[in-house]
């Protein structure tokens, strides 16, 4: 019996070793990686106007958010990037000019995504406040005053 088991052991390992090696090689070479789609970027010339940073509240603490203002095709855009995810639900980006405590008269620019996002400013707007607002939590994680008037 013991010799039989030793025979099984001797037979098993070369076969299993080869089979496992083949499986690892096949598994690595046939692996399907997730696809990354390149973003179609505008070819129009951009002119950088300003780059500013402000503090934004995350669920755990504070992070840095940066705003890059640039002009393209006679429009002003704000590109917003946060250093660490804010981890707050439904974060909306507003442009506010009246200084009121609520956002009823503010312009909604769009939603904040996982990566940098650009928002066109309403036509003719150069001075105001960029406000982040979490709709589901009803709170503002951060804001920054911008005056792009002298830079155009």
């Amino acid at each position: 019996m013991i010799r039989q088991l030793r025979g099984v052991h001797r037979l098993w390992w070369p076969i299993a070793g080869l089979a496992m090696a083949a499986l690892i090689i096949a598994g690595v070479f046939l692996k399907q990686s997730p696809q990354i789609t390149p973003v179609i970027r505008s070819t129009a010339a951009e002119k950088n106007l300003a780059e500013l940073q402000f503090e934004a509240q995350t669920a755990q603490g504070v992070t840095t958010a940066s705003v890059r203002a640039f002009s393209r095709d006679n429009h002003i855009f704000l590109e917003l990037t946060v250093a660490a995810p804010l981890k707050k639900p439904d974060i909306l980006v507003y442009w506010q000019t009246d200084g009121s405590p609520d956002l009823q008269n503010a312009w909604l620019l769009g939603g904040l995504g996982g990566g940098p996002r650009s928002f066109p400013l309403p036509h003719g707007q150069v001075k105001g406040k960029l406000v982040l607002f979490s709709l589901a939590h009803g709170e503002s994680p951060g804001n920054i005053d911008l005056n792009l008037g002298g830079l155009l």
Partner: protein
Amino acid sequence: MSTGYVSVGWNRQKKWYDRVMLAGILIYLALFLGLSMMMHPNITAETALIRGFGSGALVLLHVILAMGPLCRLDNRFLPLLYNRRHMGVAMFVMGLAHATLAVVQFHGFSDLNPIVSIFVSNANYLSLTQFPFQPLGFFALTILFVMAATSHDFWLANLTAPVWKALHMLVYVAYALLIGHVVLGMIQAESSPLIAILTALGCLIISTLHIWAGSKEKQRDQELAGNGDWVDACSVDDIKESRARVVSIGGERVAIFKYNGKLSAVSNVCKHQNGPLGEGKIIDDCITCPWHGYQYKPEDGASPPPFKERVPTFNLRLKEGRIWVDPKPNAAGTRTEPQLIETENGDQHRDDSFYVGYMPKGPKPVMKRVRSFVVGAMGTGAAVAILFSLTMNPFPAAVFEFGEVREVQGYLKEHPHPHLLVERPGEQGTWSAWYLVNQGKFGAAEAVAPFANNWVSLKGSLIYRDDQTMVELAPGGVKLLKQQPAAPINPVIAGKTQTVRGEIVDSKCFFGVMNPGDLKVHKACAIRCIQGGIPPFLVQRLDDGNVMYYLLTGKDGKSINQEVIPYVAEPLEIKGIVFKKGDMAILEINPKNIKRVGR
């Protein structure tokens, strides 16, 4: 060894063995979990534990599987075998913790039995890369369970050593299944090649050690040529005092011992676990097995009273300094007259490199080897824990406010999937669409149907990632508002036909309930969720770090949950009409236009 069954016959070495093993396991888990939490702040506790227990169990299995062949190649490693069963049981417990968490997380809370779900959720058995890897883990764990359950000497005695040994050799099958489990699971999802490299390295080391040890054993089994009935085994001088020479005769290994001016021969196979008695030593006038210290008197192969184990004996003859063995074994426990020989003075204690666990202190060369193995195993484990935790795919910021119930108000829409329109502040009067799902792996279609197209107040927990928000409804959490103003207008922006590349995910897990909630490791769970009515999304990953989210519907907004199930968690190219309804991006498709684009 003991005359009756006790749960564990503790002695100093067993206690130290278990302490060192537990310390190794705790160091591994602390390193892996600590570094994972530090380097990946978005990782969920369940994912960290699943990966920590799973990888730890696999590292431990490698350590266990290395011990056997190392002992065959160098008997100074033998003390490692003394309490190896405890290590096996500890490894099974870690594997069980991994499996329990994974089954609850990926297969629980649906309309199917979680164990059945392991086998049927992902039924892609004909594809290598999409092959369901969890059944492999299930079968491996079943084998490890049988081994752990029968690890006690009670089962060894009742099953008999050869049957027990054959049963426990199934660990080799379990190992191969676990390699398949890792290759077809984690390796398919992780972008770093590290896990593949570590798995290949582990597999190479274990296979090489076993093949090497097997070939050495084969040499030992070379049959000695017989002269008539008796076989010329060796010279008296070939055997060290108190030690044995093992020869293979008539299909059996025979251990010929030299001790106190005498020669005796017994079967080489210990009654306990079939250990190699010929690699043992005469201690207290008894042959002592090197594995667990079982003892037999050399003259009759019987254990000293009160023990009852017996091994067969063999008759010997001496001719001109050569030892001749009768190949016919005597019945176990039969007394044979030892052959008398002349011994030199001081010869008796020449070899002191023998140790079994119940002896007070091990000889230096043996302990040095054991220490080097322990340090090597712990160092390897620590390196694996560090490298694995540092090189895992990044975990996105996806949040499930589990246990935190909020009350929100809005206009409830039933189609294409239940969602709540929540008014955003601002001049334009726009609406956020928050998808609604039920607890577990279930959509909310039935729960919200009576309230559809009405203003409601609902209670639930938020789930969110990027600009997508979802609410898991609390039971009975939907109520009609008394005031029912006019229905909001959520403008539809006309769509155009597009081809979008991405992966189909179940939105509930992807938005935050699980992290990761995509790729191969999450495939079975995503299938269960989509089958249960969770809205299926096509997620398109962009090279600037953003993700585009498309709610998948059939023509006229009809649910196509069942139709997309065969394509979940694979790289796809889908042609359909993309249109926007408020802030919802919808991809209206014909399932026939789903194309796999992976290799």
